[in-house]
């Protein structure tokens, strides 16, 4: 596909998602109380998004990922939260 064709197919959808991201950040900033590691990871991922580097999706995923290499001693629960807490 040409760049124009991709814009025709996906621009409105991407614009919609970008505004949702902006509204999410506004919502978090309006709220009282502390945030946590997830918001820090989110901002780090936004840096990858606005970078001039290629492979933005890959770099956003890496920004949220556990960078350690050793298995953890024991699984406490089953779920994932979407961002590395930095405490494993």
């Amino acid at each position, binding site marked *: 596909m040409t760049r124009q064709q991709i814009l025709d197919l996906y621009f409105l959808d991407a614009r919609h998602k970008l505004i949702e991201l902006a509204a999410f950040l506004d919502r978090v900033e309006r709220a009282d109380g502390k945030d946590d590691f997830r918001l820090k990871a989110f901002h780090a991922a936004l840096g990858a998004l606005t970078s001039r580097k290629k492979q933005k*999706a890959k770099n956003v995923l890496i920004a949220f990922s556990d960078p350690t*290499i050793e*298995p953890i*001693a024991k699984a406490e629960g089953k779920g994932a939260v979407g961002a590395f807490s930095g405490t494993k």
Partner: protein
Amino acid sequence: MRYIEPHAHMVSRVTDDYERMALAGCEAVCEPAFWAGFDRSSPAGFHDYFCQLTEHEPKRAAKFGLKHFCWLCINSKEAEEVKLAEEVIALIPKFLDRPNVLGIGEIGLNKNSRSELRVLEMQVALAARHQQLILVHTPHLEDKLKGTRLILDVLKNDQRIQPQRVIIDHVEEHTVKMVLDAGMWAGMTLYPETKCTPARAIDILETFGHERLWLNSACDWGVSDPLAVPKTALEMKKRGHAAGAIDRVVYQNPQKFLGQCLKFKL
């Protein structure tokens, strides 16, 4: 359009989903053993589940002209208790000769713990001893990158494992290359909220080519879509992919990998 659904947890789906999939062109559905949404309390619970996958579910699928195949294992979410896992693994060999069993799966990791890793190694060894295909689940979200690396290390360390007989599922942009570089197959899972969207899965196809890649819905008891594969085929068509290229990804590729098990006949 014809397609194969190579990863779906149909025991969690209503019968109407079989009809919708058949109407959309599905010719076969393959069901890896996985977590039921709750922990089973004994090996007997797994025994009954394996009977459900090998006896009951094929009959439910056949009512809509669909072939049903399955994979057997203890999943990583129930692998923290190694003794339970050993007892469940001991049950599996007597099921391996059943006509719809394709191999060992979906084994893998969830939280990347030592116990999960030990159980993964045991099941890789089981597959090697019985010359079975392997289907691997990779962890979710922040745990996927590390888990995929650990899984590849386990598979590479067992010299009996032939990479072309292994599919690593749920790859995304940050894990697909390491899987393909290891000579294994890679599965892209199409989920509404996590894993890949149709658009991103097609981006990966356009970046890495059509070799050793397949698409699946992994529909289960959670938020998921049993028609995700045909919807992605439609998205490929909108992006100008030829009918032959679409058929290769949604039909020929899974047929090629799964056909390494002689029981997989359509």
